[in-house]
């Protein structure tokens, strides 16, 4: 039996949910099917929460990639583990909720540096300075309202970018434990800022943002729950354990159907739709398109110019850790998220050799008092440890640029959700090492100013947390898989709404921008589909 919908979404993360919400709010009768290969995981169970506190075990741990399952070729070890959640709600089930705008120069990376790629849109397309006068939509601002982002609009970079608009919620102030690093930054000319965090509902500061018992941190699950429960949206349906195998295309190259496997029953089902939106993340979106060959798409839909899966890029982590012999004030990192960050090196001047987005390690300084008690340490011994050596770490995302030879391909076999395995071939740009050392040296100056002993200044391999660009947008099919509206070149009805469509990964977290892009796609679909 074939079922028909106006829209079918492959994936149930923040992208699919945000577009669907936009469509349903425009026309509550819209018929939408949303599929996810993964299961639904309990979001706010009290037992789960206690188990998280006691064992650091989360109910979605089984939705991560298994170590060793996927492979890396090239000269680094790509980090797969714990970088995405394959479940209802997608990766916002586990994200840190850092909600940072890209900056205007990020949209012109190639023009500015002759590396990577330009976006076919500009910052002003997401945040028009004349929005109120012209009636244009400020997608970044709407996304911040939707996610309830807390932040400080008075930071210098925000004064330049926000068109005078405040954040929807006040910032989380710096903690006392941030103080020494704040002053170290200021000494070397780095402006300290406050991390913008998405707080969806009332935060009661348990410090357990990876599993919040109150639903305070934005999690797309909650929005999806609301859409499903809303009696106005009778034609909206979501199915889990539904692994899409193939996009069937017709002689013109358009999407004609999708086939999915119900992994609970083993049944294969066919769905037709007027519009198809692949919103399955950077890995799965491109892999599904690679597998979907057809009369016009011998090498996979959208892949006639061999760009599908190419240019994969993510952040490399830079770390500088310092120690001081005593901690008389017993500083600890009281929140489970960083309150201190800086965009002082996330500037046009730094773009050529790679911007960095700096932030204080969310865990340090810290003393696990309970663990010491379990070990049988006495009160006096614990007190001595609390006042003893203290470690603080500054971390940064380093902006790498997409390169043609870095690519994602299919590895034979499937995982436990029926999704194909992944191979990533990644070769570091030879210029990376000198550039990263320069950035580490800049970060180290903060610790010199703090008079801390530097324990390490190092970089990690990139990983999948913020992977982008496997279906990147371009001006033409020669330089992109998708166009400025994230529609696959050569099709009339197939879109990719994912970080996969981003032409670059910039230096900051992508989810706020993805949310803004999803809202923009929703408006595009409303305009173009007669919804």
């Amino acid at each position, binding site marked *: 039996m074939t079922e028909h919908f106006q829209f079918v979404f492959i994936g149930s993360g923040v992208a699919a949910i945000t577009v669907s919400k936009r469509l349903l709010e425009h026309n509550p009768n819209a018929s939408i099917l949303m599929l996810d290969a993964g299961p639904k995981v309990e979001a706010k169970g009290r037992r789960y929460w206690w188990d998280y506190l*006691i064992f650091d075990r989360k109910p979605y741990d089984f939705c991560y990639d298994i170590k060793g399952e996927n492979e890396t070729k090239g000269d680094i070890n790509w980090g797969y583990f714990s970088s995405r959640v394959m479940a209802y709600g997608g990766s916002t089930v586990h994200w840190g909720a850092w909600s940072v705008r890209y900056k205007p120069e990020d949209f012109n990376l190639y023009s500015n540096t002759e590396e990577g790629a330009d976006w076919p849109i500009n910052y002003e397309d997401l945040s028009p300075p004349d929005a109120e006068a012209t009636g244009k939509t400020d997608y970044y601002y709407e996304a911040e309202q939707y996610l309830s982002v807390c932040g400080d609009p008075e930071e210098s970079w925000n004064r330049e970018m926000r068109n005078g608009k405040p954040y929807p919620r006040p910032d989380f102030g710096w903690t006392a434990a941030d*103080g020494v690093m704040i002053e170290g930054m200021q000494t070397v000319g780095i402006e300290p800022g406050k991390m913008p965090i998405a707080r969806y509902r009332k935060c*009661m*500061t348990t410090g*357990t943002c990876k599993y919040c018992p109150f639903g305070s941190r934005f999690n797309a699950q909650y929005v999806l729950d609301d859409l499903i429960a809303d009696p106005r949206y009778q034609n909206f349906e979501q199915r889990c354990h539904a692994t899409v195998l193939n996009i069937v295309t017709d002689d013109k190259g358009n999407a004609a159907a999708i086939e999915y496997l119900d992994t609970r029953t083993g049944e294969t089902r066919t769905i037709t739709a007027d519009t198809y939106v692949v919103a399955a993340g950077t890995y799965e979106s491109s892999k599904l398109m690679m597998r979907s060959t057809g009369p016009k798409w011998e090498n996979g839909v959208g892949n006639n110019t061999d760009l599908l899966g190419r240019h994969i890029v993510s952040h490399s982590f830079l770390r500088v850790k310092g120690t001081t012999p005593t901690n008389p004030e017993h500083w600890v990192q*009281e*929140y489970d998220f960083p309150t201190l960050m800086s965009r002082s090196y996330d500037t046009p001047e730094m773009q050529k050799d790679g911007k960095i987005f700096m932030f204080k390690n969310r865990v340090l300084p810290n003393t696990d008092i*309970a663990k010491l008690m379990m070990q*049988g340490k006495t*009160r006096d011994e614990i007190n001595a440890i609390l006042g003893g050596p203290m470690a603080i770490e500054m971390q940064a995302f380093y902006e790498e640029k997409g390169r043609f030879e870095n690519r994602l391909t299919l590895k034979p076999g499937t995982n436990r959700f029926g999704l194909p395995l992944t191979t990533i071939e990644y070769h570091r740009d030879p210029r990376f090492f000198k550039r990263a050392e320069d950035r580490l040296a800049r970060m180290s100056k903060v610790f010199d100013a703090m008079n801390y002993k530097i324990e390490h200044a190092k970089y990690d391999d990139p990983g999948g947390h913020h992977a982008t660009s496997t279906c990147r947008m371009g001006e033409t099919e020669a330089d992109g898989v998708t166009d400025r509206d994230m529609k696959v070149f050569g099709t009339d009805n197939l879109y990719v709404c994912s970080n996969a469509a981003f032409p670059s990964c910039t230096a900051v977290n992508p989810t706020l921008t993805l949310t803004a892009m999803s809202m923009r796609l929703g408006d595009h679909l409303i305009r173009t589909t007669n919804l």
Partner: protein
Amino acid sequence: MTDTEMIGGPISKGVVLANLLDHEDTFLAAHQHDQLWDIFVEIGRAWGNIANDSASIKSSWREFVHAKTSEPPSYIGEYVNAISVVQELVRLYGHEDAFHKLFFANGIPEGPPVTRLAHAKVYVIDEFIRMQTVAGGFKGFAQPASLNYKGYVGGSRYNETPRVRAYTPKGSGQ
């Protein structure tokens, strides 16, 4: 811990599998709740990190035990076992020494818990310690102490109370 001979008598030294102990009951009786609470109170007494014999966090403790016994996997077998072990230790060493040995000098070998004593320590005492610390015990060590800790519920009803120790710029006069 391994420098000391393992404490306890035949109950404590009874050999069991490392995984959670089963029990035929599906809920704890009131007197068993009371016995467990008495064990919990001894944690605060031993480390001196919470006032009034932990009375201020009793509701959190009850919620914790309820979650552990009403949803799978059930901890009823572990709780019943811990009560038996502690009763034996108190018989052997007296009340004060029993808990001192249990917390600070129990001689439990490293590795998976394969005795009833080790089960009581790993599945009950250690988890109670974590719960007690999270619920407010973290504030009771060296002063000044932090105001927040991973898992601590500050409470939205008290927004006028600072959630964390906040940064005060030097020279701000605050």
